[in-house]
């Protein structure tokens, strides 16, 4: 029995190794180097822990280790890395990919001679269906060339970027192609009358030719061949250097043309520090000008000298994103107002919800209270209702300025003017606090209830003998003991509220807008929602900039929490007790 178990465990290890190895290689092959390395190093650690008897205790940390790598360390690494780049709209590829696109994308080729090349495709048939095994005969200037299946020349992962085919001139009835002997029949021919091309064991029969009604029926097979092979193919005549490529003509049909690539790599000599250096650049073959590369973007220059954006990539920009937060007045102006409100909002939310939660907890903790469980259940409901539903109910059902229950029924009934809940900065802030208090007090109540259970009854008995009143007992026994347990939770709750994007976004979306602000800042915007607007509502997405601010917010929250811990001495007290 033990033996079977052991075999099973070894089997699982082997499987794990296989899967991790495969994924790791797959990731690296597809240029996700970091994640691939993370995966492979995790694999090495796992194997080490299991195979090495000395590392026995570490075996139990393996699951945690894997998740630590994947869900904590890698995202942190990625955020920091992104913060120093301009990753975002227009800059999502890597430099390598951007260059590959310029060099190999069929859209960056142009037709040199307007006249299309006459061609005829032949293929081996299997069960009366053409297969992918094909040959093409081209007629260029009354001479005949043959091309076979083009071979991949440039690949990225499993994606083939460029294929190349060789053009071979047909001079005789029998000719050689890629080391094989072929025979074309009949011979001499013109392109229309060839019946078949044969080699040792195969016969190629015509499948497609333009303006040949019989063969144009096979357009579907032709499309498949274009799709699979010809769209990224260059047929090159080694003697003249002419390139044939398939393009759509003005009449919407696929034809072969003599083409040239718009961009090519080239070497350029530049003078730098008195020395001439040779630099690899990309030139436009039409205008013979070098294309400009700047801040992660490639630009071409048109006839009028205007820059035209070609393609961008995610490039290292150093501290630019960080300095932008501080020096760009458009950004930093409302930043401090938003920051102040963020702190006030977090503090007040925690204060209100804790006070409310604690009051309820004290009441519920009273054993003389009948139906405690019922009350407790009712009070937990706000916590149980999905966040989105609660918030939207508050927004549209209660606070809506025209149709909400407050402005429509309650306030007029009390003889008061309706209030512009969402458009008055003060009331908008009140709404945020009200709703968030409502949503979080059950949590505080539950936590306080638990903490109250932990306070020994003897303390109260003793204090009762000493003649302490209710308030004294609360302030000198309950509250300090409770705080020792709850303080760390309050601080984490503070940090959570500090970044509670969902509530603000759903409730007020940051509004009402600040009058005169040149950034999309609103009176109830907290840092994270302000950042969201800055990073994603400008010119597309700016992940680099957003990451930089996210790091800044991390330091702010960490600093505030640290200060809190120090001031409340919460940890020391707990440590002291143990």
């Amino acid at each position: 029995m033990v033996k079977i178990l052991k075999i099973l465990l070894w089997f699982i290890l082997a499987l794990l190794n296989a899967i991790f190895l495969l994924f790791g290689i797959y990731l690296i092959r597809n240029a996700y180097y970091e994640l691939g390395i993370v995966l492979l190093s995790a694999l090495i650690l796992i194997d080490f822990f299991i195979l090495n008897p000395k590392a026995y205790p570490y075996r139990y940390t393996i699951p945690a280790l894997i998740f630590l790598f994947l869900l904590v360390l890698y995202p942190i690494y990625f955020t920091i890395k992104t913060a120093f780049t301009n990753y975002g709209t227009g800059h999502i590829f890597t430099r390598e990919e951007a260059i590959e696109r310029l060099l190999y994308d069929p859209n960056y080729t142009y037709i040199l001679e307007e006249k299309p090349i006459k061609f005829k495709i032949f293929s081996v048939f299997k069960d009366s269906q053409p297969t992918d095994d094909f040959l093409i005969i081209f007629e260029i200037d009354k001479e005949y060339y043959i091309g076979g299946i083009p071979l991949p020349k440039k690949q990225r992962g499993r994606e083939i970027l460029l294929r190349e085919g060789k053009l071979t001139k047909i001079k005789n009835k029998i000719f050689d192609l890629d080391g094989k002997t072929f025979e074309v029949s009949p011979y001499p021919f013109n392109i229309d009358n060839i019946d078949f091309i044969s080699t040792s064991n195969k016969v190629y029969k015509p499948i497609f030719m333009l303006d040949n009604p019989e063969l144009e029926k096979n357009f579907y097979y032709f499309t498949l061949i274009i799709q699979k092979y010809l769209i990224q193919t260059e047929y090159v005549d080694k003697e003249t250097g002419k390139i044939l490529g398939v393009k759509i003509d003005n009449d919407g049909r696929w034809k072969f043309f003599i083409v040239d690539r718009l961009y090519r790599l080239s070497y350029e000599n530049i003078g730098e520090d008195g020395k001439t250096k040779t630099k690899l650049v990309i030139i436009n073959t039409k205008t013979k000008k070098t294309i400009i590369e700047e801040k992660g973007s490639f630009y071409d220059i048109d006839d009028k000298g205007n820059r035209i954006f070609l393609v961008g990539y995610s490039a290292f920009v150093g501290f630019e994103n960080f300095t932008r937060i501080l020096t760009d007045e458009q950004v930093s102006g409302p930043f401090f107002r938003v920051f102040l409100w963020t702190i006030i909002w977090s503090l007040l939310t925690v204060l209100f919800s804790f006070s409310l939660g604690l009051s309820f907890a004290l009441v519920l903790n009273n054993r003389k209270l009948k139906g405690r469980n019922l009350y407790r259940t009712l009070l937990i409901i706000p916590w149980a209702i999905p966040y989105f539903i609660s918030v939207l109910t508050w927004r549209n059902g209660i606070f809506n300025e025209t149709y909400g229950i407050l402005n429509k029924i309650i306030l007029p009934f009390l003889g008061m003017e309706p209030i512009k809940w969402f458009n008055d900065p003060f009331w908008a802030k009140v709404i945020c606090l009200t709703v968030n208090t409502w949503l979080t007090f059950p949590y505080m109540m539950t936590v306080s209830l638990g903490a109250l259970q932990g306070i020994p009854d003897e303390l109260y008995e003793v204090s009762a003998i000493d003649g302490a009143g209710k308030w004294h007992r609360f302030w000198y026994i309950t509250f300090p003991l409770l705080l020792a347990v709850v303080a760390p939770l309050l601080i984490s709750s503070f940090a959570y509220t500090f970044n509670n994007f969902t509530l603000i976004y759903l409730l007020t979306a940051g509004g009402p807008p600040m009058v005169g602000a040149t950034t999309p800042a609103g009176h109830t915007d907290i840092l994270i929602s302000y950042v969201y607007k800055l990073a994603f509502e400008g010119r597309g997405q700016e992940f680099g900039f957003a990451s930089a601010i996210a790091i800044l917010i991390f330091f702010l929250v960490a600093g505030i929490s640290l200060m809190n811990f120090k001031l409340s001495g919460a940890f020391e007290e707990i440590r002291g007790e143990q």
Partner: protein
Amino acid sequence: MRKLSLLFLILSLIVFSLTSAQATKITIWCSEKQVDILQRLGEEFKAKYGVAVEVQYVEFGSIKPNFLTAAPLGKGADIIVGAHDWVGELVVNGLLEPIPEFKDIKQFYDTALKAFSYGGKLYGLPYAMEAIALIYNKDYVKNPPLTMESLITTAKKINTAYKGKVKGFVTSAAEFYYVAPVIFGYGGYVFKDTPTGLDVSDIGLATPGAIKGVKLWKRLVDEGILSPGDNYQIMDSLFKEGKAAMIINGPWAVKAYKDAGVNYGVTVIPNLEAKVPAKPFVGVQGFMVNAKSPNKVLVREFLINFIATKDTMHKIYLADPRLPARKDVLALVKDNPDIVGFTKSASNGIPMPNVPEMAAVWGAMNDALNLVVNGKATPEEALSNAVKTIRAQIKK
């Protein structure tokens, strides 16, 4: 030994599943309204060409974000069906494949083609256009108003006649999209239209025309016709329940009104003054091709020789009745009064800018209109500030 062979079997299965070539098929992401018809068309295409078409439903708002995540990795749909204003962002990211000129291109409205063009190239095959128009309940309004002046009087009459039980006029009060007709009608513009595309450095949202338009809008609020709290949901549900006489909404909403049994009519948004028509945003829906799709050639066949034809476009229209982007299809559906109403409205309209810079405009303008409608700022202040905000956002 058996253990080893089992391991080998499992390993080879994994390798096989990772490397096995999948049969060629075209994947489309589209929103709810197109799923059925595209599935049916996909069957037809398969019968004709032997290539399967897989239609996947993605919520409209998620199509672009999902595509932006998947496409750079060489994944995601071959075709997405969406709005023309995504084009700029997707093209700048290098994710869209241009559509070469094709035979029937002249059959498409220029507005629709222009909307999908970016930097002089066509990046989408349009199939439907949409613009907001005045939708009115015939039970309350016999003759729809032709000018804003008469809209105000009609709305007032209804408000007093029904003592607030029925609202004369509702629309989304502080949303740029719904206020745009009056801004553009008086000559405001978002970005200046030049022969080489939109000039994003020339923003026309604080021009005298734009201010005049917003002042007119503010008058609707001041005269008690629009409430600052009016938003889309409120307008939609009031009209559905027969509690609103006139609204401004788009063709997408009409089916629900029909289903709700509202006796409605569609007509152009009233002229701002005599001979000064309102100019709504025109949105165009269309098919866009993934630049990294391995099936580009088939996709092109599918779009150009199948979807773009008169027959197919008509079928799509019947399934999802919106203003067709093909002229000869519009001729087929002229007897539908809704379509005629929306067509008239769209023919006055202006295509929504498709440049990525447009993202900065919505938030800033909604904020500005919010301030104006609530009386927190004058139109002049709010608009010039909005323009400053937009400039700050798009400057990089």
